[in-house]
């Protein structure tokens, strides 16, 4: 008799733990052939708010961790993901119905993307800092600091797009609340499992699955969220509404891309600098 396989319960990833949605809601996720794969948690407004609280709580420690340490943690995520490479390839094949070669390409690119951003953690400051030659006897430096809690609407696509938007946010010392692509909730939660076992402090990344149109407005209008990445918002009307709501506390807004993004291409540094503030410090020079 064939062994009965043990199916995974996909929950949310909030504050380093994997709770069910407080709403008790789930939605059915089918494989490419239309067979039941899992019930994914359908996050509510309350889950989104809990996630913001967790992200804020994690911000102090993560933003003041050394850049070297943040880089190591990101690299550790890549290491653990590499170890689970086959699992992700299998999951992508099941959910997307794509070939093993294609799934491998995306998983490998996602791992390499995390490595790329891991390396940026202790370099971006040097690249965008300035020593300012002011016209007076002052020591004057401008350097970047993380913006704070960033809400991220992840783009469509199972893994590569997700890590491409999340890694730069945390590499720079921000914490985030991510709404996974509605079409790909399972991989996002499995990625959460990778993060939970990679020395990433709980709350630095919080992963919600569910309806973007339902959850995103609560994050856009949340007064303790400092920035919002609308990359995954496909509906222009929803994007405009989210940007409007974001003005309530002047969130930094990254708009949805005007043309489709090639996630396989090497990115620039704009996803890092979008979530950085410049701080200029003055001190007189004298004896």
């Amino acid at each position, binding site marked *: 008799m064939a062994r009965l396989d043990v199916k995974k319960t996909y929950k949310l990833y909030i504050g380093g733990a994997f709770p069910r949605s407080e709403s008790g809601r789930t939605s059915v996720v089918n494989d490419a052939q239309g067979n039941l794969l899992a019930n994914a948690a359908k996050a509510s407004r309350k889950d989104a708010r809990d996630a913001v609280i967790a992200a804020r709580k994690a911000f102090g420690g993560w933003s003041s961790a050394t850049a070297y340490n943040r880089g190591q943690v990101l690299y550790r995520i890549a290491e653990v993901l590499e170890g689970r490479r086959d699992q992700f390839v299998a999951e992508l094949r099941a959910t997307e119905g794509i070939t093993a070669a294609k799934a491998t390409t995306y998983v490998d690119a996602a791992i390499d993307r995390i490595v790329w951003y891991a390396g940026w953690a202790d370099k971006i400051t040097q690249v965008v800092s*300035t020593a*300012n030659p002011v016209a007076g006897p002052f020591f004057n430096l401008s350097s970047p600091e993380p913006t704070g809690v960033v809400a991220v609407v992840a783009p469509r696509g199972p893994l590569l797009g997700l890590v491409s938007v999340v890694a730069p946010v945390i590499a720079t010392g921000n914490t985030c609340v991510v709404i996974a692509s509605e079409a790909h909730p399972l991989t996002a939660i499995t990625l959460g499992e990778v993060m939970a076992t990679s020395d990433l402090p709980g709350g630095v990344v919080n992963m919600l699955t569910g309806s973007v149109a339902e959850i995103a407005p609560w994050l856009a209008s949340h007064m303790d969220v400092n920035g919002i990445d609308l990359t995954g918002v496909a509906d222009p009307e929803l994007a405009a509404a989210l940007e409007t709501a974001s003005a309530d506390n*002047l969130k930094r807004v990254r708009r949805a891309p005007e043309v489709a993004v090639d996630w396989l291409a090497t990115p620039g540094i704009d996803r890092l600098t979008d979530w950085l503030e410049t701080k200029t*410090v*003055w001190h007189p020079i004298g004896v």
Partner: protein
Amino acid sequence: MVKVPERATAFFEYAPAPESRAIVDIKASYGLFIDGEFVDGHGTSFKTINPASEEVLAEVAEADEADIDLAVRAARRAHTRVWGRMPGSERAKYLFRIARIIQERGRELAVLESIDNGKPIKESRDIDIPVVAAHFFYYAGWADKLSYAGLGTDPKPLGVAGQIIPWNFPLLMLAWKIAPALAAGNTVVLKPAETTPLTALLFAEICQQADLPPGVVNIVTGAGATGRAIVAHPDVDKIAFTGSTDVGKAIARAVAGSKKKVTLELGGKAANIVFDDAPIDQAIEGIVNGIFFNQGHVCCAGSRLLVQESVAEEVLERLKRRMSTLRVGDPLDKNTDVGAINSAEQLAKIRELSDVGEQEGGERWSPACDLPANGFWFPPTLFTGVTQAHRIAREEIFGPVLSVITFRTPAEAVEKANNTPFGLSAGVWTDKGSRILWMANQLRAGVVWANTFNKFDPTAPFGGYKESGYGREGGIPGLATYLKGTG
């Protein structure tokens, strides 16, 4: 109850030392500066007055939507045909030329600024106008070096920038907006504040003197409706705004869903933090400069004094003594420290919030000072007994009003300093180097002045965290907000 101390300066009176007004020639009326010419506006013209005397200075045109459309079209033409394709080295020379003319006409600009704005001549002459010239010099040199700005080998201008500036540093805010925009190859439509249009209009003449190609700089005068028309115009690529947080939020909403880029430099409620080991004499000067510079009409003003409990009494006593020597009065007098409040409206707001401060339990103190009979005036004022819940500790007053709060530990100072939706600036006074650096790290503010305050330089990026806005002005970040990277 306002306690009236003996006048500390009674033994040491100053003779009047007025700067001559003869150097400025204020016209009876001004049009809009569009496409290199002064033209009539189609709105309802308005008067600009001298806030120190309420004397009408000039009649100024109001730009309506049609005028804004003309200005944007002129800017677009100039960008497409001339400025956007001109070699950077040539753009640079225009900007250097403008910088030189500003220096040559510096006294004229300073006097005009003080007349229209009410700020002391020693500030307009020694700070505003020199820093204006410095901004044009600094960004002039960037125009042919854009590939070194960290945005790729060939960064491109955004196109037409709509720029809306406040009345507190009229020409300086113009320079912060126009110099980087032009250096990057953009053309601009700029609206000065309705109460302080005159130096911007004189700047338009300087553009003519410099033979700047028509349409590169357009100056449109008016109030809120004119500003809204700029923000709403579909052919504007970027909005740069300095002003109140409320208007900044309205702009952020207005551009939502568009492709317009935005930078916002908004309000603040800066903490100026004095530790018990601070050089007290310097700290007193820094506190005074922090809140009474430019009548406190400064978004980054140190409007919350956080003083360590162990030295609070001494600091307050010395601060009051120093405040008693401040000379409030004629902005054109070279000895004046505190000039006129810019408008009746602003004066009403300062009075209202100060009254609320008393009603909520703050203790109000001002030195004895004779305020002129005409014009808009408010004495240097401090409030003690202020808690973090008081409106005067939370809201931007934008006037010469200081709220004093005490703290015991550095951690408490940080918590109180950051307990605000704003995050523009902060001050730290201590002789301990490691504490300065720790504080500078902890403070959620875009500018931290340690053992100094209210210093500005074109090379030093300026701008806020949180609800103080986004984007930076000055330095490379200030240039980058007018460029598209090419990877």
